[in-house]
């Protein structure tokens, strides 16, 4: 297992960071959050066709870059730092992983190249974003291959080229492809706390589907772990950027004749946040290293998700507090991170749910040993 980042990975991070710095500044994020799609098509094109980022973690045989959770994590951490709002999490991470794990050979050959280049934007429709055990409880495909049911929260569905749906069926859980423009499909926008990530609800009323492949419980759990670790990277990226900007603010903001960063209570709070961040980063990187070699993945994925969630929220709370009234204004950027933190915290399972799972995994390992 990797012990630290390789030279190549460090360089890769620089490339991604520079790209996002140039192409996704906070001014663009603010502008795009007011749009329906939430992203800039040209930046997405460049990110996909010039850099191939959406295929980073997808198999080379199908046109991905053939890297793994570590490199994907690097991208997401950098995206988290800048609150990049394009359909990367939805199409590349969620749908990309689902396709490569569940779709059959023929479909993979068709879909992965286009997902990798970003030409195809897929929204993955799950009827639960809380835990894998609830997936497929409300979306069902009947014997005539018609999909019915409702997914309350779907990321980036309104701007997607197609919908991939995990649904139950007479043949068990499967991954299905649905056209968002089918008349049996109703999509409507949902207002989200986090305006930089677009949500919608999707209703299917006997919508025609194409079955892409079988979804078994183990595979679904593997999918969930990979998604959690990817999301954890986004969160530590956000927390890291926010802690840096907050510390900088305390150095320049003067009250009572001194920079507020010289007040011990603020120093100690920032020190605690740094420790929480270092620990959350350690857990998240370790999770990526472990998932890359399949070592104890459920435990480390849940640990990363729990720690990164708590760290990001705690940092976001402090980032507003330490800015005082300014941090509560719309004009300041801090609230954008706060809202992302709140949504990431609940997405794919709350910290306490993942903590419970950690203990279950420890019990499992213990029984196995």
């Amino acid at each position, binding site marked *: 297992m990797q012990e630290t980042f390789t030279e190549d990975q460090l360089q890769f991070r620089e490339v991604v960071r520079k790209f996002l710095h140039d192409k996704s500044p906070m001014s663009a994020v603010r502008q795009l959050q007011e749009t329906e799609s939430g992203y800039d098509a040209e930046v997405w094109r460049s990110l996909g066709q010039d850099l191939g980022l959406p295929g980073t973690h997808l198999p080379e045989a199908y046109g991905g870059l053939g890297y793994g959770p570590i490199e994907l994590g690097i991208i997401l951490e950098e995206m988290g730092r800048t609150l990049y709002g394009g359909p990367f999490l939805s199409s590349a991470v969620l749908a990309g992983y689902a396709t490569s794990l569940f779709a059959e050979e023929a479909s993979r050959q068709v879909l992965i190249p286009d997902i990798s280049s970003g030409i195809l934007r897929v929204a993955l429709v799950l009827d*639960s*974003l*809380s835990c894998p055990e609830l997936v497929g409880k409300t979306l069902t495909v009947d014997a005539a291959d018609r999909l019915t049911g409702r997914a*309350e*929260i779907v990321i980036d569905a309104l701007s997607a080229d197609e919908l991939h749906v995990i649904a139950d069926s007479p043949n068990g859980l499967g991954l299905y492809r649905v056209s968002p423009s089918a008349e049996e499909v109703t999509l409507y926008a*949902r*207002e*989200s*706390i*986090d305006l930089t990530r677009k*949500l919608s609800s999707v209703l299917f009323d006997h919508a025609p589907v194409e079955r892409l492949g079988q979804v078994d419980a183990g595979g679904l759990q593997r999918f969930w772990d990979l998604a959690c670790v990817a999301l954890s990277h986004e969160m530590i990226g956000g927390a890291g950027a926010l802690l840096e900007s907050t510390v900088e603010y305390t150095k*320049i*903001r*003067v*009250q*009572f*004749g*001194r920079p*507020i960063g010289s*007040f011990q*209570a*603020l120093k100690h709070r920032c020190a605690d946040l740094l420790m929480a961040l270092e620990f959350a980063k350690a857990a998240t990187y370790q999770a990526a290293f472990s998932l890359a070699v399949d070592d104890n993945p459920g435990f480390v994925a849940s640990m990363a998700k729990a720690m990164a969630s708590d760290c990001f929220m705690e940092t976001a*709370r402090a980032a*507003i*507090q330490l800015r*005082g*009234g*300014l*941090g*509560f*204004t*719309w*004009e*300041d950027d*801090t*609230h954008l991170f*706060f*809202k992302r933190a*709140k*949504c990431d*915290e*609940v*997405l794919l399972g*709350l910290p*306490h749910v993942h*903590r*419970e799972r950690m203990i279950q995994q420890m019990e499992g390992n213990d029984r196995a040993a």
Partner: protein
Amino acid sequence: MIVQLNEIETAVNQFLDQAFSPDLSLIEWRQRLVAAGWAAPSWPEDCFGRGFTAEQTAVVDRVFKTRRIVGAAQVGPRRLAAETLLVHGSVDQKNRYLPSILTGEHSWCQLFSEPGSGSDLAGAATKAERSGDQWIVNGQKVWNTSAHHADFGILVARTDWDLPKHQGLSYFLIDMRQPGVEVRPLKQMNGHASFNEVFLTDAVVRQDDLVGGEGHGWAVATTTLSIERQGFARGRNPRATHSAPAQGRVYDEEAKELEIDNEPYTWYPQREGRPDLVFERARETGAISDAAVRQEMAKLVCLSEAAKISARFVAAHRKLGNGEVLPAGSIGKLGASVIARQAAQVHTMISGTDAMLSGSGSPMDGVIAETLISVPAISIAGGTDEIQRNIIAERVLGMPKEQRQDTGPFRDIPRNIS
């Protein structure tokens, strides 16, 4: 003088029988109230009141409430202005301003915070310069609730830059309806714009609107802040305690007044974290069956119940004339922050992924979402948690102050230039 509780009840009822009619205009009715001394019976007898104790006042309030009588205007910063004037105002100022505060003819705003002086309120750099019998004011204020429709403002401005910071401030009453005052709404992270920025450009204040004398502004402001903090600590939103569902002109006009006055405060219950909704939500969603959620719920209940009990004890002490035996304001305000934060986390656990949603169709039609993105305000507004902890440590526990770095002439103190 009427002092016995039953005598008071009789007297109020007699007055109301004679004077009240739902067909009066709101102002007319309140003018009668003021004239008769029933608008603010706890105020001194020479200030439109009757010098009643809390217990005596409660009798009056009860009669008003039972009979659904419209009382004096209460909501908003006008209460801060009025109670400050009661302590520090001149006889002339009290006579000029208190009646129209009680009748609601004039609304007020507070002009204390500045972009460069938030926690450090005494660092205000808005300048007031004497010019004949006027003061000319220049500077910028921020976080000014209701400034956009206020008739007057309570203003802290610097009148001497060569004195140490606390000594160079003066406290003014400023007419907001003048060309030198520009008010711009300030949008917050929860989408509301309850506050304003106020730009003062050669704004004019009359010499006889200086409160407490030149250079005594900090002492006067401290009174206002302490009144404000007590409001926070009691969890009292500046809302009317009785809305008036009854029929008649006076009720209609009061409802309109309340709608305007309360508008900035619609999200205030949410910034307190809505602990009141937790149990119901947990049952509805089924989250109450989750042991981890139950633990966090119980921690919240502990905090919010204890805060209420603690406030009751303080009130009971006060009633007994035992004085402030228990430390009150700042502990209550700090407690409100802790409660709000815990409540927001419990609501998050209860709502699960639905916590991402806001607006219609989201949990409790957006109330939960608004709570999640409003709680950060409670630990900042009215003095940050950090300031409250300093106050508790220094004033209640008597711990030694830090050496100040902002002594000496104000003009030499480092500050952010906005």
